[in-house]
């Protein structure tokens, strides 16, 4: 027992130090590309930390969204930035670029910023150490009401029943980000995707598998780790892979059909909220007997929308405009 707990301390200590080291390197290593790769590694290590903290649902979300999708977004943005530099034709030298990538404010400013940040770190650390060593939070309240929630995975119960209103607004944030990006009117990247037979084959093989995994995560979310966000991001990853392989949505589907897919999750959520309001006088109050069905409908439509939105975030420009220019 003693040895085991020592081993645990060793593992957790290594993860903690590894996280801090990766974060430090990602933020301060001179090359941006390296920084992004380190950030992705950081996300993967975060996933391990979540597993150690007994939060497998969060680990799944982190690996799919935090490390995977954010990493893909960062890398593709980095590549586009480099393309701008190349297209400007002023021959931005490698050296210049590296200089701009690690440019910081004046050294005086470093000290000016470091002092309050250090003070804050000490204060926060002290504040956390002062917390009582035992606290259960809301776990008993969740456990007592779990039967009435329609699902047996407590995290899903919180996300889609007890605090479903948060989730409604969160899907709104996701949709809003996409609408915001579309209104920036970014030109689609001029570079044609280089069609590669191996990548194409990989996409063909993985897409059905990702579909399957996504459906599994969606289904399993009711009683074990998983749920709409994890399923949606896996499905969205399939979309990203297809985009990378050079596949584009046919124009006939890029207008209203795509838009409907993007909003169906949020719209269903609102519709259910209003129906429950009319029926039971309370927003998003599901009758316990039908709660599991309602949650399943909400999660399925949310998965579709989340996947579509995430893939569209990756594409960046509006698909119904891209072909015209």
């Amino acid at each position, binding site marked *: 027992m003693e040895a085991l707990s020592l081993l645990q301390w060793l593992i957790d200590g290594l993860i903690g130090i590894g996280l801090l080291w990766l974060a430090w390197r990602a933020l301060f290593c001179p090359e941006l590309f390296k920084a992004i790769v380190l950030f992705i590694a950081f996300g993967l290590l975060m996933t391990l930390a979540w597993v150690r903290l007994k939060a497998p649902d969060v680990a799944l979300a982190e690996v799919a969204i935090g490390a995977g999708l954010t990493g893909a977004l960062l890398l593709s943005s980095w590549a586009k930035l480099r393309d701008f530099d190349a297209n400007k034709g002023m021959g931005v030298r490698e050296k210049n670029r590296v200089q701009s990538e690690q440019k910081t404010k004046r050294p005086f400013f470093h000290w000016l910023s470091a002092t309050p940040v250090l003070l804050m770190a000490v204060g926060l650390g002290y504040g956390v150490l002062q917390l009582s060593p035992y606290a259960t939070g809301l776990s008993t309240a969740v456990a007592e009401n779990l039967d009435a929630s329609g699902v047996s995975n407590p995290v899903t119960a919180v996300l889609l029943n007890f605090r479903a209103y948060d989730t409604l607004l969160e899907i709104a944030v996701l949709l809003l980000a996409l609408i915001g990006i579309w209104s920036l009117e970014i030109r689609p990247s001029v570079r044609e995707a280089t069609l*590669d037979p*191996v*990548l194409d*084959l*990989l996409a063909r*093989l*993985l897409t059905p*598998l990702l579909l399957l995994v996504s459906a599994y995560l969606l289904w399993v979310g009711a009683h074990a780790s998983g749920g709409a966000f994890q399923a949606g991001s896996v499905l969205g990853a399939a979309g990203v892979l297809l985009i990378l392989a050079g596949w584009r949505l046919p124009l006939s589907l890029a207008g209203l059909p795509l838009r409907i897919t993007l909003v169906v999750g949020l719209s269903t959520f609102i519709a259910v909220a209003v129906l429950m309001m009319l029926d039971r006088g309370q927003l998003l109050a599901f009758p316990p007997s039908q709660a599991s069905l309602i949650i399943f409908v909400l999660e399925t439509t949310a998965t579709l929308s989340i996947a579509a939105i995430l893939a569209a975030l990756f594409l960046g420009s509006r698909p119904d405009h891209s072909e015209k220019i």
Partner: protein
Amino acid sequence: MTLSDYLSVLFLLAGAVFFLAGTVGLLRFPDVYTRLHALTKADNVGLGLIVIGLAMQAESYASVGKLLLIWLLVLLAGSSISHLIAKKALQKGVRMWRR
């Protein structure tokens, strides 16, 4: 500990050795092509050995299947991506290392 436990440990250790060797190769090899070579050894063989070691401890055939699936997926993704990286490097004109 039974015989299968000892075998498990053996496979896991062997897998770890491959990972270690792959990592050393990644850090020490001279160019991108040889580094890819080192990396795939860790991924393919190392992970394969670890999967075998874990499969011996698995409680059901379903989890053995899942473990195998993980290995196959890593094989698929690893080989495709190594191919893409090597191809890009060739396109960009990265020279192969010669003694």
